């Protein structure tokens, strides 16, 4: 297990010298390349939340109706009658800029898995999108690709895409934002978590085969890979919604039995993050035999298997003796099923391949010992409010109104939502175009209302007020359709946190969100942070997208925004 780890290799894994020294310290030796790859994944910003964790703690996450707050695959809230709503929002910004169709499609696939992995049937998708200036040469291509990708995936899996938001601003010219949200419904006594348990129990891999998708890192510098494998390694993952649909049905079918102890989707860092998270949450070790991993191609190496980002895969721990039952279900749905290892009491992630031990890492060193940064920040001074006297009075109010309504940020989004099947499952009772989407809880009188909101220019002008406003806007949109707001999920899209101004925006927005959540008794139950959204040193507008979910106990009480009759009175509330 020895490789020469050069400074170049360390750098290509996105680790700095200090972080590498920390790895040697916690491991008590130098890692080999595979182990370095695993640390690089687990200690990445994406998995470790190393820049954001300290501040995320400020968000309120509890309420009597919250069953599970942040930390699991998605948040869970009680909606009465023994049922729960499970939801989360996540970003897929960078992949969508490289390849808009597949990037957005796999973003939808990923967030769906986060929700059904907990036992919920997904009932609605939302999408919060940010593109560059409409006249920027790339915008049209990116917009049409992203919308087609979201539709292509969501329509095929049969989950209605019921709403979202779409903004245009030059700060997103080189870094679009694609945030996808899924809401699902589960029985409260059938919610599944990711903590592995039971020494000796089988660790099972299901879904698609593993390919060489999206593997980065120091691969070129390594002798393990020829140029040929490099050429074969696509940086963009291709989504297969047909497989996802079967995976949803197969998982829900297995979940209705008594076979599963723990389950986790293979997200961004695939087999690595799923196995480490399951072992870490359960306080156990995992012994995996990588020779058993179903592979799409010949000659795949452990490094590739552990870092692959192939889609539509899950990891589960089964109760002893339930393997055959589970296998039969996955067979029926024509999906791969393989027992790839066991739970151990070693506390280590131990990987073997073709009979050799190829990695052996204490699990807590990957999670608890990950670096946490208290990055310096400066709170930008809020921009002075604009008074009405500072704005020229329009000559023609009608023309001004038309100009506003025809502008890119206010014009109709029909072109977008008509490409999404927003009615499949036949429970959408408020379609896109209203304040919030409303979806019936199948077979009940209840309905869920969902809205995503954020006004990035407010956040740029005053991060704290902007953070508050975004939370409050979802709250208003939910109440406007007659729902009682329950909780939010968020997707915090910001620039480079190593720059104190950006970090200041981040901290300010969180503090504002926290204040609004407290005031409205409207906790955060799940979320996602996406940092380093910038091109050539210019960050995007700070964009803390908020996804709010509310409950209508009686769906018939739903309000809409259509004016029903001439002569009805319009009433303005608020100041």
């Amino acid at each position: 297990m020895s490789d020469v780890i050069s400074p170049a290799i360390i750098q290509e894994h996105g680790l700095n010298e200090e972080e590498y020294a920390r790895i040697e310290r916690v491991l008590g030796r130098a890692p080999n390349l595979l182990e370095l790859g695993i640390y690089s994944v687990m200690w990445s910003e994406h998995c470790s939340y190393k820049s954001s964790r300290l501040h995320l703690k400020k968000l309120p996450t509890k309420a009597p109706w919250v069953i599970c707050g942040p930390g699991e695959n998605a948040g869970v809230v009680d909606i009465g009658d023994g049922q729960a709503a499970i939801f989360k929002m996540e970003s897929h910004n960078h992949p969508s800029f490289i390849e808009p169709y597949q990037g957005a499609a796999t973003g939808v696939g990923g967030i769906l898995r986060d929700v059904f992995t907990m036992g919920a049937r997904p009932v609605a998708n939302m999408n919060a999108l940010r593109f560059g200036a409409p006249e920027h040469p790339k915008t049209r291509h990116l917009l049409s690709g992203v919308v087609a990708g979201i539709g292509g995936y969501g329509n095929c899996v049969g989950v209605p895409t019921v709403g979202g938001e779409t903004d245009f601003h030059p700060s997103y010219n080189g870094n679009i934002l694609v945030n996808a949200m899924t809401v699902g419904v589960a029985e409260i006594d059938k919610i599944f978590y990711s903590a592995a348990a039971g020494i000796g129990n089988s660790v099972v891999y299901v879904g698609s085969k593993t390919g060489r998708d999206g593997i980065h890192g120091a691969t070129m510098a390594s002798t393990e890979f020829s140029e040929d494998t490099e050429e074969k390694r696509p940086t963009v993952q291709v989504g297969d919604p047909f497989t996802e649909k079967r995976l949803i049905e197969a998982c829900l079918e297995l979940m209705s039995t008594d076979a599963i102890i723990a389950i986790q989707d293979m997200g961004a860092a695939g087999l690595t993050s799923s196995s480490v998270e399951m072992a870490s949450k359960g306080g156990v070790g995992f012994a995996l035999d990588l020779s058993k991993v179903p592979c799409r191609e010949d000659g795949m190496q452990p490094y590739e298997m552990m870092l692959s980002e192939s889609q539509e895969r899950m990891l589960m721990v089964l109760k002893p003796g339930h393997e055959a039952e589970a296998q039969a279900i996955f067979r029926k749905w024509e999906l791969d099923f393989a027992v790839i290892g066991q739970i151990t009491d070693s506390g280590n992630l131990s990987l073997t391949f073709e009979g050799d031990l190829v990695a052996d890492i204490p699990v807590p060193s990957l999670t608890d010992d990950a670096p946490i940064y208290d990055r310096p920040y400066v709170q930008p001074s809020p921009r002075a409010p604009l008074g009405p006297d500072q704005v020229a009075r329009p000559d023609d109010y009608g023309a001004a109104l038309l100009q506003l309504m025809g502008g890119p940020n206010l014009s109709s989004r029909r072109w977008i939502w008509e490409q999404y099947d927003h009615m499949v499952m036949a429970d959408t009772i408020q379609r896109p175009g209203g304040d919030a989407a409303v979806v019936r809880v199948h077979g009940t009188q209840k309905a869920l209302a969902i809205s995503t909101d954020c006004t990035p220019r407010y956040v740029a002008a005053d991060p704290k007020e902007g953070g508050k406003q975004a939370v409050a806007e979802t709250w208003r949109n939910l109440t406007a359709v007659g729902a009682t707001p329950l909780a939010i999920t968020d997707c915090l899209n910001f620039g480079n946190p190593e720059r104190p101004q950006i970090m200041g925006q981040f901290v300010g927005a969180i503090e504002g969100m926290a204040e609004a959540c407290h005031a409205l008794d409207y906790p955060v139950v799940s979320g996602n942070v996406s940092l380093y959204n910038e091109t050539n040193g210019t960050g995007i507008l700070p964009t803390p997208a908020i996804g709010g979910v509310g409950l209508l106990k009686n769906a018939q009480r739903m309000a809409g925004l259509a004016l029903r009759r001439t002569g009805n009175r319009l009433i303005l509330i608020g100041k």
Partner: protein
Amino acid sequence: MKAALITFPGSNCDRDMAVAIKSVTGRDPIAVWHSETTLGDVDFIALPGGFSYGDYLRCGAIAARSGIIPEIIRAGKRGVPILGICNGFQILTEIGLLPGALMRNAGLHFICRDVPLRVETSQSVFTGGYRTGSVVHMPVAHHDGNYFVDPDQQKRLDDEDRIAWRYCTKSGEVTPQANINGSVGNIAGVLNESRTILGMMPHPERMIDPAHGGTDGRLLFESALSMLATL
């Protein structure tokens, strides 16, 4: 009355169809998995919408080669009413129970919206409750609903009064503008020769309850199933 609901890997409107059938008959349809090879004695067969096999290769192509298909063909030839909606319509053309083929929408985009449809014939178990020439509204949600038949076939369909619906304007005119997906003759649904098999792209099962925004689809199930309910 026994209704069979056929599902394939990737079907996703099966539940909606079951709800529609049950809301009219009071009974759940029998769920039939694509790989089964016997149907038993059924009085009605429904092929739901969705993306069987991901719409890969051609919509409905792979589903059309499933184990249950020979049984469906036999039942269809015996006169058992068959309703294929959206992907179900695509499958019925692929197996040859209905003429023509469904190609990519002319505008290339997926389209999901309510559309006006003109009832072209009330001479079938499915459309018997509608008035010929009237306009109804139902949602469409498809990427490949562009109906093609060659001109001879089209003429035959016309002559034999086998066109069930056409895309039209709100006031019922069949115009090129109202043709949402490029279908020949604005055709949205067709019947087989014996008028017992209907394939259509619009989704009547998504318009059965006032909360859907209308109930124009309900009549289709009522017409077909009330007749069969006596069996």
